[in-house]
């Protein structure tokens, strides 16, 4: 496996009974890339992501994430990936700093590391004054950023974001993407699904899924010129309308 490849997927499939959610998808993601994963609801994006971060076993095919086989090395996968789902998943009834402490502990960080990380995160997110507030009192955009930060406590090289900005206002989304860029600049690979086409334009490369298959893959500029459209939105609508 080449050294600059973070995610390598070949002919990966997942069936639920007779339903084929993901149908032999293949692609590669380079290290430090922001890779956008587009597709209509039910196209199979979430199923694909869940397989890549070890939540679901594939029916067939191979995939390597951060150099580990997703079928046989799921515990290594979990140590070397971060995952944040469309569902906000911090404990609302824990304080901000308790959430950080908890996830730090779960990822096996030492007490000292947890203390350092907590300090760092709180100052980066400007949450020092809120550290003793219950998480449920935070505005949605902040919760989202906090969730991202806690998903990255263990410094994973590959990060999966499944519709991370769902239900967040435009300003917060912009802030969120600033963080994504910052993380990518540190050499981390970001794998993101989204329904916001303006966000898709921020990605370095995109893939578009339709009915379990990847029907298009390339840089935003390539896709736009290939379909002769002015925006990814138009490309997406054209592809998703096809049958």
């Amino acid at each position, binding site marked *: 496996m080449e050294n600059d490849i973070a995610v390598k997927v070949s002919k990966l499939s997942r069936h639920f009974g007779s339903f084929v959610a993901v149908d032999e998808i293949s692609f590669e993601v380079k290290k430090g890339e922001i890779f956008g994963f587009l597709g209509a609801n039910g196209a199979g994006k979430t199923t694909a992501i869940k397989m890549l971060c070890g939540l679901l076993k594939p029916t067939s095919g191979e995939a390597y994430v951060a150099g580990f086989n997703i079928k046989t090395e799921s515990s290594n996968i979990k140590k070397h990936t971060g995952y944040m789902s469309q569902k906000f998943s911090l404990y609302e009834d824990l304080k901000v700093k308790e959430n950080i*402490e908890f996830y730090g502990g779960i990822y096996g960080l030492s007490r000292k590391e947890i203390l350092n990380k907590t300090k760092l995160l709180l100052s980066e997110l400007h949450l020092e004054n809120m550290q003793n507030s219950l998480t449920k009192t935070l505005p949605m955009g902040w919760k989202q950023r906090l969730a991202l930060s806690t998903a990255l406590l263990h410094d994973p090289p590959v990060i999966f974001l499944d519709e991370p900005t769902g239900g967040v206002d435009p300003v917060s989304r912009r802030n969120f993407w600033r963080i994504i860029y910052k993380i990518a600049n540190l050499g981390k690979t970001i794998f993101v699904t989204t329904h916001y086409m303006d966000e898709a334009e921020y990605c370095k490369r995109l893939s578009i899924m339709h009915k379990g298959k990847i029907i298009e893959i390339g840089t935003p500029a390539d896709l736009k010129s290939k379909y002769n459209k002015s925006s990814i939105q138009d490309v997406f609508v054209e592809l998703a309308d096809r049958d």
Partner: protein
Amino acid sequence: MRQILYLVQKEFRQIFRDKAMLRIIFIVPLIQILVLGNAITTDVKNIKIVIQDQDKTPYSRELILQFVHCKYFKTIGFEDNYTNLSDCLASGKANLAIVIPKHFQRHIVLNKKPDVQILVDGVDGNYAGVALGYATDILQKYQERLISSTPYLGFYAKNIHRVEKAPMFWYNPNLESKPYIVPGLIAILLLIITMFLTSMGIVREKEIGTLEQLMVTPIRSYQLVLGKVIPFSILGIVVINIAMGFIYLIFGIAVKGSLLFMVFESLIFIISTLGLGIFISTISETQQQALFMAWFTMICFILLSGFFFPIANMPYVIQKITLLNPLRYFIIILREIYLKGTSIKDLIPETLSLVAFGACLFIAAIIRFRKKIG
């Protein structure tokens, strides 16, 4: 190991932050003990009687006095009309009617066999049986007094072939139902806290998405499960100890046996209930479903445990089915320790049954949990 500690810490933080939940966990059980401990009673007291004295003689009045003075009976009135008498039973004003026929005294004096009719409201068979027993006792005592006061019978004639019964009820001398009910209440408390809270706690994390977030961390399923069950086990044990203290204060019933042994048996019992809780969480998508399943399980367990109804009175097939109920064994164990102070060597079969159930249920639950969630 450290991961488990973090999970336990998190769980306790959540429990203690949720004031409504805390009230449910600590106060509701005490109310339950107070209400159910007093309400669930199989004691037969204050049996309402109505009397018809057709004889109206010194002998009949003497017999009536025995009923009036007996602490189990409460005389609500005298009726001369038989229809009114049966109305009393029909309307529930009286549970029992005593009819002393005409010539009662004459039959006694003439050494004929005097009759007394006793009519009992038999709707609640158990109650009726006990009430009739008390009435029969009174008649028997009355008869003995008649015999001993009969002047022309010699000493031997008075005592011949007379078998005196001298009953003694061990462990619960007054045959009160409280000492019998209370250990069962503790068992049910423990069942509720461990099974309900575990299943709902896991399903809640499923609902809010934190379970999925946990599953992408390197944490193992068994750590996750232990992190969930340890806090609720500690909570369960603490609550039953508080409950036992409360029971002592309110009802004056203390544990006869070793408290430590009781906690030990409780820990064995909750392996089953925690296993069930986890199992329920794997078949439920929402907290409502989990609650319903736990409720359904609990009702079956309680009804088939001998808590209310003695297992010996159940149909043969049902009796065999109760053998599959861990609560059945635990209630036996608790009653033994609570009332008799029985030690482990007399409770080995029950304890082993609990261990076997616990092991099977817990392992099955973990396997299913790993398959469904892990």
